[in-house]
C-alpha cells in the first residue's frame, strides 16, 4: 500500500490530476473527520479544501518520511485548524460557533441537550472525548481518526514517539475516568 501510495504521490508531484484525485479520495474521510472535530462540522469542508490546496501548492517540498503522505497532510490540516482558531479569536462570534461544535464532536448542541444521543455508548464516548483538553483530543484524533502511527503522530506534533505513547496513555486514562464518572 505504501509503495502504491508513493507511486501515486510521485505522479501527483508531476501534476497528474487523476493521481491527486485518488489521493484526495483516499484521505478525505479521515481528514474530514479530524477537521470536523477541530474546526466544527460546518467548517470542515472548507478546511479540507484548504488543506488540499496547501498540499497541492507545497507537494514539491514533500519527502517521504516516517509520517508518510498521510502524516504530511495531517500536519497541514493541523495548521489549517490552528489558523482557523486564530481567526476565530479575532472574531468572537465565530469562537462561539466553533466552541459549540468542537465541544460536541460535530453534533448540534440542541440534540445533545435533548439527551437523545447520550444514551448511545458512542455518544457517551464522544461526550467524554469532548471534555478532554485540546492536546489530548488532538493526539487521540491523529492516532484514532487519522490512523497515524506513534512515529507519524510524533512528526506531526513535533514530539518524540515515546512522548506520544506516554501522552496517549495518559489521555486514555483521563478519558476512562470521564466515562466512569459519566456512568456513575
Amino acid at each position, binding site marked *: 500500500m505504501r509503495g502504491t501510495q508513493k507511486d501515486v504521490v510521485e505522479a501527483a508531484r508531476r*501534476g497528474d*490530476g487523476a493521481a*491527486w*484525485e485518488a489521493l*484526495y*479520495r483516499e484521505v*478525505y*474521510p*479521515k481528514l*474530514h*473527520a479530524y477537521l*470536523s*472535530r477541530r474546526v466544527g462540522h460546518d467548517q470542515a*469542508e*472548507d478546511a*479540507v*479544501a*484548504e488543506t*488540499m*490546496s*496547501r498540499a*497541492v*501548492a*507545497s507537494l514539491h517540498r514533500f519527502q517521504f518520511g516516517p509520517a508518510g503522505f498521510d502524516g504530511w497532510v495531517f500536519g497541514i490540516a493541523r495548521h*489549517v485548524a490552528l*489558523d*482557523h482558531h486564530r*481567526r476565530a479569536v479575532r472574531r468572537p462570534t465565530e469562537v462561539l460557533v466553533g466552541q459549540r461544535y468542537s465541544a460536541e*464532536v*460535530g453534533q448540534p448542541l440542541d440534540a445533545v441537550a435533548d439527551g437523545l444521543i447520550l444514551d448511545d*455508548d*458512542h*455518544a*457517551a*464516548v*464522544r461526550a467524554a*472525548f469532548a471534555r478532554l483538553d485540546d492536546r489530548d483530543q488532538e493526539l*487521540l*484524533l491523529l*492516532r*484514532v*481518526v487519522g490512523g497515524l502511527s506513534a512515529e507519524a503522530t510524533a512528526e506531526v506534533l513535533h514530539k518524540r514517539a515515546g512522548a506520544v505513547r506516554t501522552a496517549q*496513555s495518559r489521555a*486514555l486514562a483521563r*478519558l*476512562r475516568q470521564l*466515562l*466512569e464518572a*459519566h*456512568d456513575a
Partner: protein
Amino acid sequence: MPSATPISDDRLLDLLGEALAPTVSEPTPEGLAALHAALAGGGDDRGADIVVLRAATRRRRLGWSSVAAAAAVFVFVITLAVVGGNSRNTKLSDVQLASEKLSQALRSNSSSATTAHDVEVLVDRINRVPPDQRAQLGTQPKQLLDQACDHLSGSQGAGPPAVCHALPALPGPPPHRAVGGGPAGTRTQGTTPPTRATTGQPPAGTGAGGTGAPPNRGASGGTGSGVTGTSVPAPTRGSGSPPTGTSGGTAPGGGGPGGRPPTGSSGGTPPGGERPGGRQQAPGGQPGGQPGGGPQGGGAR
C-alpha cells in the same frame, strides 16, 4: 456505558474509533472542483481563495508585483545601456575601418581621388562620434588625416578636399620636444613675466621669427629661416601662466614675453611661423617656425 471493570486501552481505542468514525466517505463535487482549481492555478499562490490565507497572499502578491516591476525597470535600463554601448562601439568601429582604409590608400599610393574620398569618409565617420567620445579614437585618425591632406596638397590632382580645411577636433599625438630648431630669433623686451614661475624664469623678450617646429611636429622643424617672421606673442597666451606641456621648451630663440608655452597639441601654432604644408596661416612666418612660447620649458619646472 455501564461496566464493572475498567476498560482496557485497546478497547477504549476501539470505542473511540467507532465513536469518532468519519461520517462522510466521498468528497463533495465542490471539494473536487476546488482541488482541480488548485491544480490549475499553479504556483505557491494556489489556495488564495481560502479566507485564512487571504491576507498573507495579498502581501505576497504585492511583493511579487513590486519585484516584477523593479526587474522590468532593471532590464529596460540594461537594454538601454547595451544598445547605447553598441551604438557607441559601432561608431568607433566605423572610424577605425575608415582609418584603415585611408591608411591603406596612403600606403598603396592610390589615386588622389580615392584618397580624397577616403579622407571625406573618415571625416564623416569622425563627425558621427560625439565630441566627448572622440578621445577614444586615439591619435591615429588625426595623423592619417594630416598625412593624407599633406599628401593631397602636394599631389598633382585636384588638391585636398574641402574637409581638409575643416578637420574635426581630434586628439593629436603627444607633443614631444622640438629638436633642430632654427636660429634663434631676436628677443625684445617682454612685458608680462610668468606669474607662477618659480625657477627658470624665461628671459623677457619677444621671439622674433621663431623658427622651431610646432610642438607636435617638432621633429620636422628647424628648417625655417626665421628671418621674416616677427613673433608677436599671442594675446591669449600672454598671461604668464606656467607651462603645462613638455613641448616647445627647449628650442632656442623662441620666446614670447613670458608667455605660456604651447600646451600639448593645442599649442602648436607658432606665432609668426607657418607649419610646413600647414593649413593654418600665421602672418609672416616661415616653414618650421619655432613656437614662440616659453623658451626654457617654462619656469614652473
